[in-house]
């Protein structure tokens, strides 16, 4: 990493810690960086509520995201390929998508609870809604971006429509699908934490953990929880990027 990419954050944290140590920043509003790290330690070893340890909160959250996101990708990619491939199917489905897409995932929470009750299915459904549309739209864009001459080249090599689908449209739209997958997981992860604020049945989840910390007035743990959310998001993104650059070596 370049010097300037960590110098400024480091400086700000030092100033922040200094102001906190001088009691210029009230501890009950914004705990110092050291206090936040100690809060993180408590989350790891004692848990919030006590006994519910951080790693289990994280695992539950990841499980919900994984489920909703997985289903979203599994449905959005084939549908996107179909919609990109056939103008008719695209015209048929587009109006529906344009109507549903602007509804924020969180606005689905009440009806999700009616349908699925409070629990993993509701949460996964909300994630699904957050991740589905970016993946779908990027997949469609990916197919449309393929040079038609490549489809014709495949045709002159005697490819059937099915082969064209599998050997030209799918590989050709993968770069764009990846973009959708990254945006999708980002939105999914953000949506999840918010969804967990409204309640979870299992007693685990990073969002739930943060709300519990708020209930008992532990701003250090609220911020530590936020830090964990940020770090996990960062790791997921970095992981996807690494995977992407492996798969897309042909793009250079």
């Amino acid at each position, binding site marked *: 990493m370049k010097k300037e990419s960590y110098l400024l954050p480091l400086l700000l944290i030092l100033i922040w810690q200094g102001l906190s140590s001088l009691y210029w920043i009230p501890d009950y509003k914004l705990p110092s960086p050291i206090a936040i790290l100690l809060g993180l330690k408590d989350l790891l070893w004692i848990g919030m509520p006590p006994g519910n340890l951080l790693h289990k909160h994280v695992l539950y959250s990841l499980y919900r995201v994984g489920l909703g996101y997985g289903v979203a990708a599994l449905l959005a990619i084939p549908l996107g390929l179909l919609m990109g491939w056939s103008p008719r199917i695209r015209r048929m489905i587009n109006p529906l998508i344009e109507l549903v897409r602007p509804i924020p995932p969180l606005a689905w929470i009440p009806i999700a609870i009616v349908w699925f009750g409070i629990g993993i299915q509701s949460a996964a459904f909300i994630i699904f809604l957050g991740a589905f549309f970016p993946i779908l739209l990027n997949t469609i864009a990916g197919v449309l971006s393929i*040079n038609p*001459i*490549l489809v*014709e*080249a*495949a*045709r*002159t*090599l*005697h*490819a059937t429509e099915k*082969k064209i689908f599998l*050997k*030209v449209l799918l*590989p*050709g739209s*993968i770069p764009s699908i990846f973009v959708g997958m990254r945006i999708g997981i980002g939105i999914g992860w953000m949506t999840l934490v918010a969804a967990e604020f409204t309640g979870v049945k299992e007693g685990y989840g990073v969002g739930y953990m943060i709300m519990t910390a708020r209930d008992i007035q532990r701003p250090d743990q609220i911020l530590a929880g936020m830090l964990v959310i940020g770090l996990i998001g960062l790791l997921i993104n970095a992981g996807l990027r690494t995977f992407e650059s492996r798969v897309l*070596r*042909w*793009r*250079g």
Partner: protein
Amino acid sequence: MGLEILGLSKTFSGGSRGESVHVLDQLQHRIDNGRFVSLIGPSGCGKTTLLRIIAGLEKASVGKVLLDGKEMVRGSEDVGMVFQEYALFPWRTTLQNIEMGLEIRGMDKVRRRSIAMEYIKTFDLNGFEHRYPRELSGGMKQRVAIARTLVMNPRVVLMDEPFGSLDSQTRNAMQEFLLKIWLKRGDTIIFVTHNVEEAVFLSDEIVVLSRRPARMLERIEVAFPRPRDRTGEVCNHIRRDILKILEEEMKREEVRDEDHWNRLQSP
């Protein structure tokens, strides 16, 4: 026996503004099997459209194309096409691009790999088997594109200005390479070019097309033996003839496409 183009006309109807474009006008021609025929004509006259119809990518408005007396069907294995812009699959390596057609045909991996490796050798692509198209030079890309088409053993190979975007040295080398391959294989080649010198250097026969809608203006037999001297007396003589025909054609109706004219004159 050969390829017969019978009364072929093409009109594109209903573009964005709804007007129709008459592109091919009752083309009639016969190409004996195993000949190297070049098509030359003003840009926009319909050369690509003609190849696309023969390849089955486009339908003729009137007329048909026969191969050995049988009408060619869409997706026929008898025809292969090399596109002007290479049209390589960017996500496939050299080897995988050459294998594509065999893979589509359902040939097993071991067999298609060994066949593709032979083409790699013949086409002088050793060491680049596992490179992606973006890592190849223009000449190499075009060799991959030609290999990808020939590996299917089509009886008629259509080539749409295949060397148009190469620099002149690479272009000359590619012409000689193509001749070498063709003399060994004996497929029928229909070769579209802008370049009169190229046509004379390569072909058994040159067909000169008119401005749009394309009609056949002239059919020139190039009977003198290969290897030919590009700048020799015979080549220059035929070149002058063709340039004159094209010049007359461009003067017709007082419309001149200066840009295109200049391109024809430069070798």
